[in-house]
């Protein structure tokens, strides 16, 4: 199968859905003429024109509100927030309006919109352009949250998100944009709420999201040489969450390490740990549930500090080794 990048997979999903469904359009800052801050929508203006590729002023709240309103009257907008950091500005429309309206109107209206946004550190973009806020939105009933880790997942999940009748926060990781993987040319859906076992193993389960899936895969390769057989579960969507796949994996291995980039306190790892502890997997645990996550600091500008602020491959190896050998 052909290989394309994560970035191209996202673009292909948007392009194919716009070709299929005239209600789908793109709205955001610098997405048209400029092609997007990460060039995700590069060339799309030429293909679809100004009517369907809408450049807006710098107003995250305004463009999210416009997308919400368009969705309410039957369009299927894809809004792009250039950096996840600025979803804080968009959150009133997203959290208080988009997430609520279907419920408040008793299902008589729906809000079929996608809010795409790149998250994560690693580009030297410092405090305001590096954050991972997924759990802010996981906390809101009425929103769905997708977080693909591979080009294949990015395309399939984005198509499902566009076709879904609920607002979906679609989180792309900046460092994954250039990664390549096999992606079918035809459109396909990956159901929201279906985790993927990225690597099968028997000694311990790593549950990781986004870039941490990739780092965990690298860690697993090295751990395999030590005889430690790691299973990697990628939830792919945080809400809805595929608890069954997670619980089954933990029941199999009895040891679980949760890895995400977002700050540990209040992060999604706490939710995962809670789900596991409440489930029948509890009785299969051989060690405490461990979390490896971002440190309790803003993402620093200094590259060394930036690297130290989030889990790296060597951190995952060390923690996984401790867990596998029951040192914790």
């Amino acid at each position, binding site marked *: 199968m052909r290989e394309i990048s994560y970035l191209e997979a996202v673009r292909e999903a948007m392009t194919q859905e716009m070709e299929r469904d005239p209600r789908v359009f793109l709205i955001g800052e610098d997405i048209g003429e400029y092609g997007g801050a990460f060039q995700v929508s590069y060339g799309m203006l030429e293909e679809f024109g100004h009517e369907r590729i809408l450049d807006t002023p710098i107003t995250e709240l305004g463009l999210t509100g416009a997308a919400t309103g368009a969705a309410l009257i039957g369009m299927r907008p894809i809004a792009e927030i250039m950096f996840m950091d600025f979803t804080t500005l968009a959150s009133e429309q997203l959290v208080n309006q988009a997430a609520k309206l279907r419920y408040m109107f008793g299902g008589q209206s729906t809000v079929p919109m996608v809010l795409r946004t790149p998250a994560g550190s690693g580009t030297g973009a410092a405090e305001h352009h590096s954050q991972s806020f997924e759990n802010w939105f996981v906390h809101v009933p009425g929103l769905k949250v997708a977080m693909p880790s591979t080009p294949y997942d990015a395309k399939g999940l984005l198509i499902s998100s566009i076709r879904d009748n609920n607002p979906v926060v679609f989180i792309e990781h900046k460092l994954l944009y250039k990664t390549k993987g096999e992606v079918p040319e035809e459109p396909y859906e990956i159901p929201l709420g279906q985790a993927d076992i990225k690597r099968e193993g028997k000694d311990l389960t790593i549950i990781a999201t986004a870039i941490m899936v990739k780092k965990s895969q690298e860690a697993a390769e090295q751990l395999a040489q030590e005889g430690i057989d790691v299973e990697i579960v990628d939830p792919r969507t945080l809400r809805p969450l595929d608890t069954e796949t997670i619980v089954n994996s933990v029941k199999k291995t*009895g040891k679980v390490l949760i890895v995400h980039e977002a700050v540990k306190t209040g992060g999604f790892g706490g939710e995962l740990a809670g789900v596991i502890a409440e489930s029948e997997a509890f*009785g299969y*645990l051989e060690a405490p549930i461990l979390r490896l996550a971002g440190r309790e600091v803003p993402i620093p500008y200094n590259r060394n500090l930036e690297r130290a602020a989030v889990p790296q491959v060597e951190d995952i190896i060390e923690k996984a080794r401790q867990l596998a050998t029951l040192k*914790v």
Partner: protein
Amino acid sequence: MAVEMIMPKVDMDQETGTVVEWLKTEGQQVTEGEIILVIETDKIAIDVESPGTGILQGISAQPGDVIPIGTVIAYILEEGEELPEGAVKTQAAQASSAPAAQHLEESSRVQATPVAKKMAESHNIDLLTVPATGKGGKVTKKDVQAAIELEKPETSAGDLIASPAARRTARIKGVDLSLVRGTGPGGRIQASDVESFQPLIGTPTAVGVKSGESIPLIGMRRTIAERMTASYQTIPHVQFTVSVDMTKFIQVREDYNKLALERGDGKISVTALLVKLVAMTLSNHPMLNSSLVGDNIVLHQDINIGVAVALEKGLIVPVIKNAAKKGIRAIADETNDLVTRARSDQLSSTDVKGGTFTITNLGPFGIEQFNAIINSPEAAILAVGATQQEVRALPDKAIAIRPVMRFTLSADHRIIDGSVAARFVADLKETLENPILMNY
């Protein structure tokens, strides 16, 4: 250097120990490993070895004193060595605050990194006590961390640490986790430890034990073994047997049970009625309801009757407290409850504590008569045999067949003279043969 002798922790749930006897006195020469002290927990009396070689000094706990574990109770000094400051508790309490202030000043002069200082402060670590490894003798964060680790209390043997998987496996396999050795961090029991556990070797039970196997002396079996040995070896037992005509006892019990049936209450067991009658008799014989503790014979105010209950893996003695003051109905209900819970392994530690006299009944096995070992620190135990129909000569020289039971009292002969025990036994016989005396 002065060696501290502390009140040791010998039981899992022990918080204090009672000094029973010093085998060496102040100023005597002692050798490391030599037994110099006898202490007692609420379960067991135990010999304590000297922690060092030298002269025993500064004994601050006397026989009968109840001392928290870990408390220094004496020192072993070298020739010519002085007792450390504050060796005697009372002196330490009265010490003025001046040295403390001076100490504080010294602490602030210790060279330490700012992080180390802050950490030490928030963990109440005295920087003076932290070995420094940093440049120029500075105390570093790592040093303070090490000190904090040292301060952490060690996991007590009483806390069972097991992974959820191990607990689940144990539940499924019916393994008693307290018998399993944990191989995880801090001795945590892992599922694999439970899987590889050999129940036949580990569980001291008469059921399922095959001849030719060896069973380690652990858990309840070890406690029983130690206590029986200690009691039998240290207490001179004296025994008195009496045969009792149970005719009226049986009659009274039947009357009670008719009443109980009418009222819809539970049955009054033989044990319950025995507990009541023994307790009433004991109230007139305080010496039989006493304990020898150190140099004192303690006469107990309450009469708390322990009832030995046989279990598959050993035996346990739940206690009916204040039995002399309770009515037969209350005693019957309490006895039924305790025995039921004893057999289902659901007794709490308070259920088995505080006994002052024990009754053990092997009558159901048809044993006519036997001698029991005293449940130390109690002063006596009553062994109850089977009820048998026997031919008896009545006072009017007539011959009759009567239900007869033999009771044997074992008493601590150090504190109970033969005549004292005999009077109790005679009174007990009279009360058992005329149960109405219990309320007379």
